[in-house]
């Protein structure tokens, strides 16, 4: 770990790509049950999930950031709250919790850069993408 205030991040995996999500924003992880497709929304928006009576918009991280699709029997939805908006992140698995500081992430090579990505870092010898939840929510909601 390098210098600077480090924050715990939840490491999740979607269709083979690793993502780091600030743990402070994570409310819970629920199994992905029937999602209700939202006509007209972008492909990354997988639909609405009923979380104990509240409808949460679910975004597939793999589709949004890695041109993949999270598929399989036991998908999970990481429920995050950013700026009082609730968003569900569809992933294959929740792997670990790891502390990162801002300078653990370097800019991605994407051209143009994706504003919803803070950068990339590494976890257990693999690349991990740091997601800017606030920006992701801003892009998702009208």
């Amino acid at each position, binding site marked *: 770990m390098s210098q600077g205030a480090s924050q715990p991040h939840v490491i999740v995996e979607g269709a083979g790509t690793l993502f780091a999500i600030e743990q402070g924003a994570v409310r819970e992880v629920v199994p992905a049950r029937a999602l209700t497709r*939202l006509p007209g929304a972008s492909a990354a928006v997988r639909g609405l999930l009923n979380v104990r009576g509240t409808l949460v918009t679910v975004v597939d991280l793999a589709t949004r950031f890695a041109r993949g699709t999270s598929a399989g029997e036991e998908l999970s939805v990481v429920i995050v709250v950013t700026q009082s908006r609730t968003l569900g992140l569809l992933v294959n698995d929740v792997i670990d919790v790891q502390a990162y500081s801002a300078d653990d992430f370097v800019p991605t090579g994407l051209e143009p850069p994706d504003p919803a990505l803070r950068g990339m870092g590494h976890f257990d010898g693999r690349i991990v993408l740091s997601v800017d939840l606030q920006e992701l929510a801003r892009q*998702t909601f009208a």
Partner: protein
Amino acid sequence: MDSARYRDLFLTEARDHLVAINQALIALEHIPRASQPAAGAGDGASDGATRASVDALFRAVHTVKGMSGVMGYVAVGSLSHAMETLLARVRAGEEALDGEQLALLFDASDALEAAIEGAAGAQESALDVTSLVERLQGRASVVRAMAADLAAVAPGGPALPAGDGVAVHVVLEPGTILPGARAQLVVARARTLGAVTAVVPDEGAMLGDEFDGTFALRLVCDADDAAIEGALRAAGFVQGVRVVHGAAGAPRPAAGRVAPDGDADAPDAAVPRTAAPRPDAEARFAAAWGSEALKAPLQRYVRIDLRRLDQLMALVGELMIVRGRLAQRATLHADPALDEAVSEASRFIGELQDAVLGGRMVPVWQVFDRFPRVVRDAARTLGKDVEFVIEGREIELDRSLLEQVADPLVHLLRNAIDHGIEDPDARLAAGKPAAGRLTLSASRERNAVVIRLRDDGRGVSRARVLAKAKALGLVDEERESLEDEEILRVIARAGFSTAERVTELSGRGVGIDAVVSRVRALGGVVDLRSAEGEGTTFSLRLPVTLAVIPALLARVGGESYALPLTHVTETLQLSRGVVRTVRGREVIVIREEVLPLLHLRDVVGLPGRDAGHDASASHVVLVEMAERRAGLVVDQLVGQEEIVVKPFDAVRGAASCFNGATIMGDGSAALILEVGSLL
């Protein structure tokens, strides 16, 4: 103490009292001036009406004053106190309620509203009410000065029992919080100077509601007048101190019955002014401040924070969803005892839902009663004469829905007064009464509440709307007339206005479009009927509640959707209608009516309309909104259900015809199709 919570309570309650104050003022304004009480002879009926309105006004102002005292809102307190003092004199017959005074009270009511909102918004310091308080007191001080003069010329009538020492008359500053306690402080100060042998009113009465800060005491001491005055003023909030030597005291100024113009013909003026105990004046005074008038009707209701009701509603919604799941699971077990328990639970949950929904219903008067003031002010501004009638004020509507429909209604009211109702001269020339009639009514029709606003004004000028519509390219050039629903469609276009002038109130071309879209967003429909020269009627048809709606559940391509029943007229098998193509668009002919045909599959962006599905088994749901109708093709009809509407955050790019969803028995969500946005 949780001050924010009390502030909210204060605000809610104070707003109700403001409505009462405005209603009473408007009622007073409508009573012929000649029969105002102090003017002498009037007919009994309007005297009674005046009395009742003044009492209502007094009661509301008094309550606001009391509440503001507890909350420590000084501006509200001093304003309401000044209003109350003025009204007390009116009730005692000391002062007539003329037009000038009514206008002053209207101004005071506005200032009171500002003060209340300001106080609750914690911006009280920004508000200066002194000038109004002075205007209200201006009349008071004139009367008081006259009373003092009277006391000086009248040797009799001591309010204080005779005795040694001097009589000291004290008046506290208006608006003094807890005047009784302050007065007792003054009395305590006096005791430091010498023996206080009498206090009028007594210390018990000072703590009562009727104490207005005016009192007298008899003091035996060696101090000179200036020393006495200085000592008593040091207690604070003392407006005036008068020391009277000799056995003769003065009557309490407010108790002196003074006709403002000194009219000797005023009732009871014949009572000798020298009469020692002045029993009639005292009795009148007591009655004016009397506890009877202040008694509020017994409370049958409690106030509940709307959020608690919302929470209850959400919980009942969850229960209903669980009920569906339970019922579904129970069918798998074929256990009669289980079935019975489930059906019993199901019935109670249904009743619970009705009860909770009932708790959210409020009579429309809670919003309608604010309107007479709006109408009065708008009519005055525009120089119109308007008679405003409210009908069906007991009809109930979901609280949140009612609140959301208030703004659109205000707009329609102002619009009617501005554009609908003519100037008095124009009305007389057209053979109508000078005063326009504006009727706001609420009625229950099937599972909807209809709010109608009817005016007897000039009606919509079809020629002008048609010309404007042509100019904007909204209709073909060769059209010669417009139907009512077309007129609404034209004037509801954002930015459309035929008003020749931009008045202060409306005509800026914004408004009707906002009204229509707001009502539509609430699941309602706006309808317009207008006859030139005879008037215009706007009808707002609204669902009774937003939280639970009856809906038809339909499936297409394996997905479920809910169609609100308010817009569904009937369903039939696709094979029973004749499908044709007219100008490249599919239509269905049903009972000689040709309706455009829409496919839900296309609406929700599912591919392959006919692939793998037997089209003849499809159903057509006939939907209608305002005067527009269409057929909507679905794969399968599941049934009719009461669904709980759940909102969700709008997602970028998502079809705008979906703003809510409902949760099905299996826990998944089904989108609710807003039919209005399809047509």
